[in-house]
C-alpha cells in the first residue's frame, strides 16, 4: 500500500457545515495510507464571493498565505477536499507560477506577514488523489462491509471538476461534463451507482445561501432527477452542495409541494461505512439533517 504525506487544507466548512466531510476524510485517508498534515494556521480561500470586497490582491493574499504556510512545512502536494478551496488555490497557484511579475507582487504582500511563496507546490483535490495516487483497487481492498444493493446517485456538482478537471501536472483526472470518478468510488464501496445525468448540475452555490428563492428550482430539478433514478441516497464531494441540497429539502417541498427526503452524504462517509469504521467517530453519520442510517441499514 502506498504511504504518503500530504499538506492538508481542510477549509472553513471543515469546522462548520462540512465537519462530517473532514472527519470522514481523515479517517478514510488514514486507512489508505495517506497522512494528512494540516497546513499550519490556514485561512479562508475567499470562496466564490471574496473577490467582491477583497479584490484581486485580497484573494491572492488569502490563497498565497495558505500556500506559503504549506511550503514552509515542505514540498508535499497541497490537498483540499473543498470544491471552492480547490478552485481558488488551484487557480491562484497556477497564476502565481505562470507570471513572474504577479509572483513578485504577491510576495511583496506576503512579506508584510514575513511569508513567501515561489509557486512550486501542486494543488490537488482529495478526489483526484483517490483516483491517481490511491486507485480503486486499494479502496476496494479496504472494504469490509460492501454496501450491496444500495442505490446511490453520485452528484459531483460544479467546482470539483469545473473548470479544473485537469490536474496541475497536466492531464485530466476526469471530464468536466460526465465525470466517472464518483461512480467509481460508489461501486468500489459495493453500492450501485445509478446512471445520473444531473451529476454536474449546479445547486446555486453561494447564491442559494444568500437568496434561495432564486435557486430552489435548480435543487428541485436535481432532486427530481435523483428520484427518477430510483436512488435512495445522494453522494457528493462538495461541502456547499451537501449543505444546500440537504438543508433546503423542506423549503423545496414547501414551495413545490414535493416530498423529498433524500439523505445527502459525502463519498468519504460512504467509504468510512464500507471500510467498517465507526459510524459516528469516523463516518460522522450523526451530523446529518436527514439521517442516512436508515437507508444504509437497508444495504445488505
Amino acid at each position, binding site marked *: 500500500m502506498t504511504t504518503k504525506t500530504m499538506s492538508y487544507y481542510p477549509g*472553513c*466548512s471543515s*469546522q*462548520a*457545515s*462540512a*465537519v462530517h466531510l473532514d472527519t470522514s476524510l481523515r479517517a478514510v485517508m488514514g486507512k489508505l495510507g495517506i497522512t494528512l498534515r494540516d497546513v499550519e*494556521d490556514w*485561512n*479562508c480561500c475567499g*470562496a*466564490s*464571493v*471574496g*473577490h*467582491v*470586497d*477583497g*479584490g*484581486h*490582491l*485580497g484573494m*491572492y*493574499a*488569502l490563497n498565497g*498565505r495558505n500556500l506559503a504556510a504549506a511550503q514552509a512545512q515542505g514540498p508535499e502536494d497541497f490537498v483540499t477536499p473543498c470544491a471552492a478551496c480547490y*478552485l481558488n488555490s488551484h487557480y491562484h497557484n497556477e497564476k502565481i507560477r505562470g507570471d513572474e511579475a504577479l509572483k513578485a*507582487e504577491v510576495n*511583496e*504582500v506576503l*512579506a*508584510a*506577514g*514575513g*511569508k513567501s511563496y515561489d509557486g512550486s507546490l501542486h494543488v490537488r483535490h482529495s478526489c483526484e488523489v483517490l483516483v491517481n495516487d490511491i486507485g480503486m483497487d486499494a479502496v476496494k481492498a479496504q472494504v469490509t462491509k460492501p454496501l450491496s444493493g444500495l442505490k446511490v446517485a453520485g452528484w459531483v456538482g*460544479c*467546482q470539483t471538476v*469545473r*473548470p479544473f*478537471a485537469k490536474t496541475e501536472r497536466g492531464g485530466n483526472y476526469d471530464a*468536466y*461534463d460526465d465525470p466517472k470518478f464518483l461512480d467509481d468510488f460508489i461501486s468500489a464501496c459495493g453500492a450501485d451507482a445509478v446512471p445520473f445525468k444531473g451529476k454536474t*448540475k*449546479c445547486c*446555486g*452555490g*453561494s*447564491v*442559494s445561501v*444568500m*437568496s434561495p428563492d*432564486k*435557486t430552489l428550482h*435548480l435543487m428541485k430539478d436535481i432532486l427530481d432527477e435523483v428520484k427518477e433514478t430510483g436512488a435512495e441516497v445522494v453522494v457528493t464531494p462538495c461541502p456547499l452542495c451537501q*449543505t444546500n441540497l440537504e438543508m433546503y429539502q*423542506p423549503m423545496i417541498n414547501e414551495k413545490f409541494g414535493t416530498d423529498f427526503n433524500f439523505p445527502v452524504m459525502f463519498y468519504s462517509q460512504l467509504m468510512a461505512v464500507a471500510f467498517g469504521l465507526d459510524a459516528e467517530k469516523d463516518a460522522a453519520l*450523526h*451530523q*446529518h*439533517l436527514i439521517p442516512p442510517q436508515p437507508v444504509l441499514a437497508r444495504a445488505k
Partner: protein
Amino acid sequence: MNAMSPTPSKAYDLNFARWVYENVDGGDRMALCMQCGTCSGSCPIGTQMDHGPRKLFMMIRAGMKDAVLSSNTLWNCVSCYNCVVRCPRQVPVTYILHDLAHVAVREGYAQAKESDNARFAKAFWWSAAKYGRTDERLVTAKYYFSFGVGEGIKRGMANQKIAMGMVKTKRMHLGMPHKVKNTGELHAILAKAAEMEAKKHGAK
C-alpha cells in the same frame, strides 16, 4: 487594476472596453467573444439575468459602462463555471464577471452595493479578513441584518429551523468564531494587499 475605469463619451467609445481588456481578470480573452450565446445559454439561472454575459460583453464594447456595472448579471453568477468550459472561444466568463462585480462595488455603483450578493460578500469578507476564517453563523447573521434589523430578524426566523438543525448536528457552533492563530500577521498581509490595490486604482 490600473486607475478607475474610464467613462465612455459616446457609443462604441472603446476606452472602457480597452480598460476591461487590460485590467479585468481574463479581460484580454474577452476580445475573442463572437457573441454565440453559449455562456448565457449554459447559465443555470440565465433567465434571471437582465443581460447575461454574452450581451454584457457586447455592451462593454458598445461603451455602455453604467449599464454594465449596474447589471444584475454580475450578481446572479452562481460560479458553476459551465460557461468557462463550454465557451468555444475559451473566454473565462466567470472570472470576468467576478472581477467586474468587484469593479462595480469599488466604483460605488448603488445597484451593486444593494444586491444580495454584494451584501453577503461584504459580510463574508468581514469574517474572512477579521478572523481569517468564515464563520457561517456570523456571516449569515451579518448578511441578514445588512437589510436592517427588522428584515434581519425576519430572515433569521425564516431560517431558524435550518439553523437549529445545523446546531443540533454540530455543524454550526455557538460561542466565539473560529479564527487563525496569527491574526496580526494575516491583517498585515491583507492591509498590504489593500494598500497596493488602492495605490493602483486610486483610493476611494
